[in-house]
């Protein structure tokens, strides 16, 4: 008898850009390939068009399931305005502190120009979502509940309490990753409750596992690590002709405190002291975008740094294809799928040591995010020494392709069994 999962997940590409949606999508697709039955509960504010599957019914009516193009996965939308960590709306530099606090509360804009319904505030919306999920769960058959990150935890707890089924929560990021030491107490409380209520916890790295144990007071034996994977499309990447002869260093991600954009710029400044012919591309939006633009100007490197804002689809591919080096200077990165994506695009990577990927990946350069000199030192080395760039690219890509979602899904299956035996 196969374990049936009620998965409380997040939106799939191309509607989202963050790691959470990508991870949910990758994991669920792999579970489907392994024949693991999943009912995927999705907060949705508007009708859905699904990548790889036929279009959903048009209009605003809510039908109970959407077809997914997957054999073992049913998609069940729940009307809700909850969204994970969106690119966010840039705001004036002076207000970035305020904006940061709002980052997780960002709202969804309909692609067709329609505005989605706003939840009055995030906490009420989380509760409202939990009630909706409870209702939906009544008509579902499942053996285990799998909730992804804090906004779905109350719903997971509610369903588990009602049904007596084991709750597995997966932690893709914690409040400490997103906000440093200035945690939102309410969010922290929800995270903590979810982790304590869960039968088993899946952390996306040992880095995150340690935070869960030390900051949330969870017994170590309850927390298992399952690394993320990467969807390899099998294409051989071609390089995109650059508009300039210069070397290019790429930052791609949300421009938020968590991602360390200012360290990237400080390092860029140092690199330019040693090398002239380098350009730096910062791709992404976020509450530190304007501040970053100002910082680049203040450092006197405004003419060398290009801000692309938020990129989608082919533009993301192009950004990678132009790059000689991808840098992820995150202050705190639970896993870090983006470096794997960069390697999939044949771009060597430099990652901060405070990331999940750094603990398990060998063929990448690693640096402390605050160590500007060392970050610049390594950037210069990659740009100056072709053998280094080549080895990081070839060996890194080989290693990246070993991160298979099927392996993650199989591990998740084992954890389900363990959780079911404990209830």
């Amino acid at each position: 008898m196969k374990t049936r999962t009620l998965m409380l997940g997040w939106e799939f590409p191309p509607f989202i850009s963050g790691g959470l949606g990508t991870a949910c999508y990758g994991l669920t697709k792999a579970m489907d390939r392994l024949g693991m039955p999943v009912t995927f509960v999705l907060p949705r504010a508007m009708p859905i068009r699904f990548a790889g599957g036929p279009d959903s019914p048009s209009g605003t009516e809510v039908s109970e399931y959407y077809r997914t193009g997957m054999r073992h996965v049913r998609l069940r939308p729940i009307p809700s305005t909850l969204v994970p960590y969106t690119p966010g709306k840039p705001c004036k530099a002076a207000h970035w502190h305020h904006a940061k606090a709002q980052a997780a509360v960002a709202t969804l804009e309909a692609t067709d120009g329609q505005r989605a319904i706003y939840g009055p505030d995030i906490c009420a919306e989380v509760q409202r979502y939990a009630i909706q999920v409870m209702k939906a769960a009544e008509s579902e058959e499942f053996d285990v509940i799998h909730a992804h990150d804090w906004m779905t935890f109350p719903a997971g707890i509610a369903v588990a309490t009602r049904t007596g089924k084991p709750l597995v929560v997966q932690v893709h990021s914690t409040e400490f990753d997103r906000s440093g030491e200035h945690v939102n107490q309410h969010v922290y409380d929800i995270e903590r409750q979810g982790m304590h209520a869960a039968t088993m916890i899946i952390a996306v790295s040992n880095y995150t596992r340690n935070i869960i144990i030390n900051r949330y007071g969870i017994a170590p034996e309850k927390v298992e690590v399952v690394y993320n994977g990467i969807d390899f499309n099998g294409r051989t990447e071609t390089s995109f002709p650059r508009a300039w002869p210069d070397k290019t260093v790429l930052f791609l991600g949300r421009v938020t405190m968590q991602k360390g954009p200012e360290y990237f710029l400080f390092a860029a400044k140092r690199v330019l002291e040693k090398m002239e012919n380098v350009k730096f591309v910062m791709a992404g939006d976020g509450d530190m975008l304007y501040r970053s633009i100002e910082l680049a100007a203040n450092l006197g490197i405004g003419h060398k740094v290009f801000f692309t804002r938020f990129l989608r689809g082919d533009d993301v591919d192009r950004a990678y294809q132009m790059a000689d080096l991808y840098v992820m200077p995150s202050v705190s990165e639970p896993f870090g799928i983006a470096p794997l994506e960069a390697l999939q695009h044949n771009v060597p990577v430099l990652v901060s040591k405070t990331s999940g990927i750094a603990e398990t990946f060998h063929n990448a350069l690693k640096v402390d995010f605050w160590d500007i000199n060392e970050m610049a030192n390594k950037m210069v080395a990659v740009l100056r020494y072709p053998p280094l760039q080549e080895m990081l690219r070839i060996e890194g890509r080989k290693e990246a392709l070993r991160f298979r979602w099927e392996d993650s899904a199989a591990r998740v299956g084992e954890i389900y069994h363990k959780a079911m035996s404990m209830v």
Partner: protein
Amino acid sequence: MASVCFYFQVHQPYRLRHYTIFDSGNDYFDTHKNAEICRKVAKKCYLPANRLFLDLIRQHGGRFKISYSLTGVLLEQLREYAPKVLESFQELADTGCVEFLCETYHHSLSYLYSPREFVEQVEAHRQLMYDLFGQTPRVFRNTELIYNNSIAQAVERIGGFDAILAEGADHILGYRSPNYVYRPPNCSKLKLLLKNYRLSDDIAFRFSNRGWNEWPLGADKFAQWVNTVNGNGYVVNLFIDYETFGEHQWEDTGIFEFLQHLPAEVLKHPDNDFKTPSEVAAAYEAVDVVDVPYYISWADIERDLSAWLGNAMQHSAIRELYRIESMVKASGDPDILDQWRKLQTSDHLYYMCTKWFADGDVHKYFNPYDSPYDSYINYMNILDHLGTRCSALTPAGVA
């Protein structure tokens, strides 16, 4: 007869300090770490092992003999950080039962890239052995037992050598045994002594392995294995890293205990004895020519050059290293020359090895860097700085 021929390799590199592209100092070496490691290894290995061998030599009244190859870069560090070790090696030299071999002063791969530099380092090392131990070496061993036909010929051309050592790799020996003396092709006088890697590795690698079906290995059992060579070989060449004693195999594995009893156990058989490499070369005729057209070494299971020259970074680093040779020598600056030579030590290239890097294993233990990439970046930054210093001193056009 079965002669046991011990040769111990003793070496420590000058490890580099962290050197970024923004550094501009002329000091490239991590003095603090080098001193610390030198003193640590002296305490755990060199001093107790030297003491033990000195006792054994005295105890057996000249019947127990050993040989060493001490690199120039090790001896310089001992002089500075652990002079007692140097004194104890001199004491060993005074017994007359210890032979000192010759190698490249800087434990370098110079033969592969600069034959001229190779000769200079061999001469420098031979002189050092004479200065410190009053012996002029008659036997040569190249860095990491890197060897092929042409190296043997080059060593014979340098002159003054009776024998050269190499790995007794299966693929060069075929059905033949390493327990005889051989000759390199096109050499008239030089003999070739080959490492018995099975028995050597029993001590160096397997000794403390509890999963090994011969564990625990006692001196009596090992002597039995030596005895079986009687009648189908002359010599058992045990070529071992000296740091095996106390550093790779910790004292609590019983390794010193094993050594303590080994000479007596071996000598129990009336046909056995101990010989130094020179004595082996003098005592036994070569039975055959061994042709080694390709490079071999004693490293890893491949027994080739891939630990030092197995990837693009390593090739790029060594090319750059020897590319600046003429500039370094034209600069006329003894400090620059000395630093350039210390950068030739093969360990620097070994740290850049990516073989099995993904598994993170044996190489890691000896590696001061977090990754081979870090090692390459650091090394190239230093070479770059050294090259810049040379350029400033060299008239244009020399390089």
